[in-house]
């Protein structure tokens, strides 16, 4: 029963992933990506990884994709990108996809999936203990990297805004 549900959701996730790549309109791509993220969240839930599923829902589908969609609907990027798509973009895309696929295959062949057995129902405490105990340094490190990215964005955006205020050309 669970396995069947997993298969259906996995196929949906795959289909929506293709939808992201092959949609003509940016808004449809963004919606397919949302659908894909939701499918992955459901997969997590089916594997009893409750916290991960909820975090996926909350962070990616609920916050990040909303900002994506926001930008796509307001800026209408297809108007800007019109006529700019050429073979070099496609080649780059295929190269990146191949690289990612190779990485995934290497990781997949080395990882032992036995560790991923379904945890107990109330796994939240265990998860929190691991996150803030065993993995506290990687966790804080990731937080630090995100903070650096945040400051970078503020700095870059701020400079561009200041130039626009002066009426001068943007530096980038």
């Amino acid at each position, binding site marked *: *029963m669970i396995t069947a549900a997993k298969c259906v959701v996995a196929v949906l996730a795959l289909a929506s992933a293709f939808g992201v790549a092959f949609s003509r309109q940016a*808004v449809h791509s963004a*919606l397919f990506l*949302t659908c894909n993220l939701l499918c992955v969240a459901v997969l997590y839930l089916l594997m009893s990884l*409750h*916290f991960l*599923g*909820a*975090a996926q*829902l*909350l962070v990616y*589908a*609920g*916050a990040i994709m*909303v*900002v994506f*969609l*926001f930008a796509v*609907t*307001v800026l209408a990027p297809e108007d800007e990108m019109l006529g700019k798509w050429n073979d070099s973009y496609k080649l780059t895309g295929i190269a990146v996809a191949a690289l990612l696929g190779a990485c995934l295959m290497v990781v997949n062949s080395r990882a032992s999936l036995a560790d991923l057995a379904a945890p107990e*129902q*109330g*796994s*939240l405490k265990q998860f929190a203990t691991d996150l803030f105990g065993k993995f506290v340094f990687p966790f804080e490190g990731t937080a630090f990297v995100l903070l650096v990215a945040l400051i970078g964005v503020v700095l870059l955006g701020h400079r561009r805004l200041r130039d626009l205020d002066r009426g001068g050309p943007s530096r980038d």
Partner: protein
Amino acid sequence: MTLEALGFFVGVVIKAVLFSVALLTGFAYMTYGERRIVARMQWRVGPNKVGPWGLLQPAADGIKLLFKEQLQPKEAKTFLFVLAPMISLVVALSAYAVIPIDKDPVNLFGYSIEPWVSNPSIAVLYLLGISSLGVYGIILGGWASNNKYALLGAIRSSAQVISYELALGTALVSPLLMVGSLSFRDVVNQQLDHSYLTGDGGWLILAQPVAFFLYWTAAVAEVNRAPFDLPEAEQELGAGYHTEYSGMKFAMFFMAEYVNMFTVSSVATTVFLGGPGGLPVDESQGLLFRLLAHGPHWFLLKVYFFMFVFIWLRATFPRFRYDQLMRIGWQFLLPLGLINLGVTAVGVAMQWKSYQFTLAVASMLVTLIALSMLNRKPEQPDHH
């Protein structure tokens, strides 16, 4: 599939249908109640012609909306235009699945009936995650309408919802930290079973008044209600994201808004007001005492109190300006929530009793008010 699993499945479906019907009926009569109450507050009468005291007004409205012509702008994106109100409504209804309307399972005809659809260990996260999806309906509706006012309303709404979600989450963390669980059932049980003076129980609004204030403010902003209803500011934007919607599609947006109001009221009730808890009596002394101690009627009473507050706020406060809205969210609610969280974390680490939390939060408030008064700039005389 075993028989037991099938029974569980059927039970969940029946409960989900019952909850949905209850919420939608509640929505219909909230529109009536809102019109009557706002009318009373504005020295008017309100709808009183259809049926006794106008009680059949929602039915008349529903029939009107069902048979109304479905208008759609020529340049609108049809698929997304139809999908958007459905997303709003489905998301709003499914958020309600994790809210318990009573404390313990009820034994009825030999069956143990649980008064909640589902009780996952991550209930709060599920609710926040699902309700954060509601903004998709608004963005897509505004964009697919191909109308600049609708799009402006959608943009305002998404910016507002994203900003206030942070304050909302921060406000909820403090009481949940005291409980030490993300399950609504644990939250209710701790409030009802433990003592306020000698333990870590009691209604959490007593121990966390600042968190309650923050939660309620952010929640009003989250559901786009007055005084935070900039996404549908009539004077500026027509009706915001649902300008182009008519008939049943408009009604779905309308339903979603009211169901969201019910959801945030229910969360406020569950987390801060002891959920289905009533008077502090011994429930083992008979049915009457059991009903006095806790039950769905207490839960409904508190939820409808919060719904009344929604209407009251709408009739009382003028709308905020957009820069005021953003400043309140980012420069007032969020920092206050973080300070409150810090105080709560210290208290949890030192295993304070509930009343000690109240004292600590009160002294935090006094300190902050004193600091802000010291920090105030002297008034500048006007030079025009």
